[in-house]
């Protein structure tokens, strides 16, 4: 195949790239010779000619040197105002924390912070760290079973609700009306739109306007044998403490009987 093959429209690199060992002069050619291929184009022989892109790549200029890359990163990031220089009381699911310095050291260890997944044979330390994380959360929560985190708070609720629906064969969940709108939106995504075969109805439970807690009479009115789960938070979305957690639990427990 000629060198005008569409896979070969780009110019050959002028210099080796620091992140690609085989971009050093001659290496690619050496491998091609060993496999008996006349050109790079030949290794792409599975792709029909007409499939190669026609629009040329239009990317911003390369910053191959670490100095240029760092300058660009820092210049851009400095255009952010940050909560170290400014006092911030923004919260709603993202709070400022003190992070111990050794945490930065440990999570930055390259053995941990790569894009490897980590086989148990070779990465025992990583697996032990994960297990210890689960164990410490188990101690904080007094729970025997803790898994590694899922994508987010809302995703964890979504998974829990779908599990509850499967365990109970019911398709309704009660959620506080006073919820973080972002989280509620994630919950609705997991519960599927009404009309789909697996849809779970999301019913909002009113809040007591003076305390921010769940309105227990509204909760009791909405709790029925079709309810798979009740979800509430502590502290609640507006920072109040839900003191009636035990009552909510007892109200939900009455429905467990129906399952047996």
């Amino acid at each position, binding site marked *: 195949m000629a060198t005008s093959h569409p896979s070969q429209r780009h110019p050959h690199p002028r210099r080796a790239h620091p992140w690609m060992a085989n*971009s050093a002069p001659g290496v690619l050619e050496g491998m091609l010779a060993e496999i008996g291929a006349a050109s790079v184009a030949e290794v792409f022989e599975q792709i029909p000619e007409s499939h190669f892109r026609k629009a040329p790549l239009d990317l911003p200029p390369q910053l191959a040197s670490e100095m240029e890359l760092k300058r660009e*990163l820092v210049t851009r990031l400095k255009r952010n105002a940050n909560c170290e220089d400014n006092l911030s009381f923004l919260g709603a699911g993202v709070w400022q924390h003190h992070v111990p310095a050794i945490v930065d050291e440990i999570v930055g260890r*390259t*053995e*941990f912070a790569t894009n490897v997944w980590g086989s148990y*044979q070779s990465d025992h330390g990583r697996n032990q760290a994960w297990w210890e994380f689960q*164990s410490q959360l188990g*101690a904080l929560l007094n729970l025997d079973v803790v898994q590694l985190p899922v*994508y987010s708070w809302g995703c964890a609720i979504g998974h829990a609700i779908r599990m509850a629906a499967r365990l109970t064969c019911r398709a309704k969940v009660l959620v506080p009306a006073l919820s973080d709108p972002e989280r509620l939106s994630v919950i609705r995504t997991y519960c599927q739109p009404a009309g789909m075969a697996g849809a779970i109805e999301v019913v909002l439970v009113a809040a007591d306007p003076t305390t921010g807690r769940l309105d227990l009479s509204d909760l009791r009115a909405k709790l029925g044998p079709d309810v798979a789960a009740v979800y509430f938070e502590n502290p609640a979305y507006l920072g109040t403490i839900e003191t009636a957690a035990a009552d909510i639990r007892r109200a939900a427990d009455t429905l467990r009987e129906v399952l047996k």
Partner: protein
Amino acid sequence: MTKLPQFHAAKWDEPVVMAMGRPGARGQLFPSPEPEVMDAAGPAPIPAAMVRRDRPDLPEITEFEAQRHYLHLSQMTLGMMGVSLFGTCTMKYNSKTSEFATWRPELAEVHPYQHPDTLQGVLSIIHEFDTILRSLSGMDQFVFQAGGGADAAYTMTAVARAYWADRGLLGQRTEMVTTIQAHPCNPATAAAAGFRVINLPLEENGYPSLDALKAAVSDRTALIMLNNPDDMGIYNPEITEWVKAARAVGALCFYDHANFNGVMGKLSARELGFDACMFMLHKTFGAPKAGGGPAVGAYGCTADLAPYMPAPIVTRTCDVYALDEGRPKSCGKIRELWGNVPQVVKAWAWARAMGAEGIQTASDISVVANNYMDHRLGQIPGLAKSNPGNRQRRMEMTRWSLGPLHEETGIGTVEFANRMADYGIDPWWMSHEPWIVPQPFTPEAGELWSKDDIDRWIDVVAQIAKEARETPDLVRTAPHNQPIAQVKGAVFDDPAQWAMTWRAYLRKRAGAGAGAGAERGAA
């Protein structure tokens, strides 16, 4: 043959952190709140009904002991600091320049609800990265909310629901069509989203026939989800006909571009006819995922589908960046907020550092290197390439089989994986389910590793094949040079023998042995 690596992992003979320390020891102290705060909060800020009575059973160790313990754990982690040719995950160099940049307060100490005018730096990065991915894919808009590749597939299913609901056809468009060679996250997320999954079986070329697809799609098809090339390294040359057939019945076409490394700059999802695609930033774009995340699945689609994407979208008007939350047709949130932004910044830095030229070179290198690897692996007796009928050169990875060697020696892919770790080589990726060839393994060289690294990896495979014939017990009982002995899979079938937390471990152990009553009472 290169010199075989002499290796022994660190082994620190110390207990798990839960069993360390001494009562009253502290690793962190916290200042007490100011008197004004104390006064405002009152003597009992947590109401009595909710106050915790017991103390959590956490390790009480000093700051140094915590540091030392976790450094020991990092030392007992190979973490691709030997050679890892772990297929389907595209091992890359994860730049420390960009890692450290994301630790700066200008990124680590910002809040997503700050006014966008105070976040122009990070928004400019996200927006520019969006344009980079648009150019690479031909799509019109990207969003970074998804927490991984599977979550981006899930985003597609949510977008498809919103698209069909908007047309009043959600009740009719109930099916998703894919192939058994797609990543399992495609059928899984479609099912979780409420679609019925149709999984096409492979035929002799290594992919389903166009006729099978045509028979499967109809006016019930909401979308099709495909990856190409697949994990066997096979490119479906009929992909454009597939997309045409799906579009002919009105279905949406999603390109799982996880296997992008070999075709970066060569294929455009849009030009192939797809409506949407996803890229894994923790794979192809050089962001680390640290084992289990945080990760990002970048989801991109055409202007026709863009109204249905999750919000917010980063916009740019006259050089001012903003967040567009007001998208009435949006499918809703896939996750809260914007996504794992530090990972997006690292992926942007990767794309900028590589540039168009570097990205093209990287895909050249990864496909040439895989073919070089195929060439050398083919010379090791007992190894077989998947789909031997397909004699064309493979893409950036190849599915291999140890079938013949296994028949000859009884040593298979799991034993190999165990033994590789003894040479300081990360165990290989075997295969997603279903295993299409016996005793599979799937190497991927990518652009990071030198030819010497690749040669060393192949030499280790050849050495283990030799050991399988001459000293099979050595392989069967591996690993020998790692901090732990072989993990026996059978115990996972017996809940009495495993625990997910120290609490559960203590309870189960107490239940099994003497003194059970006492320990159970304590727990």
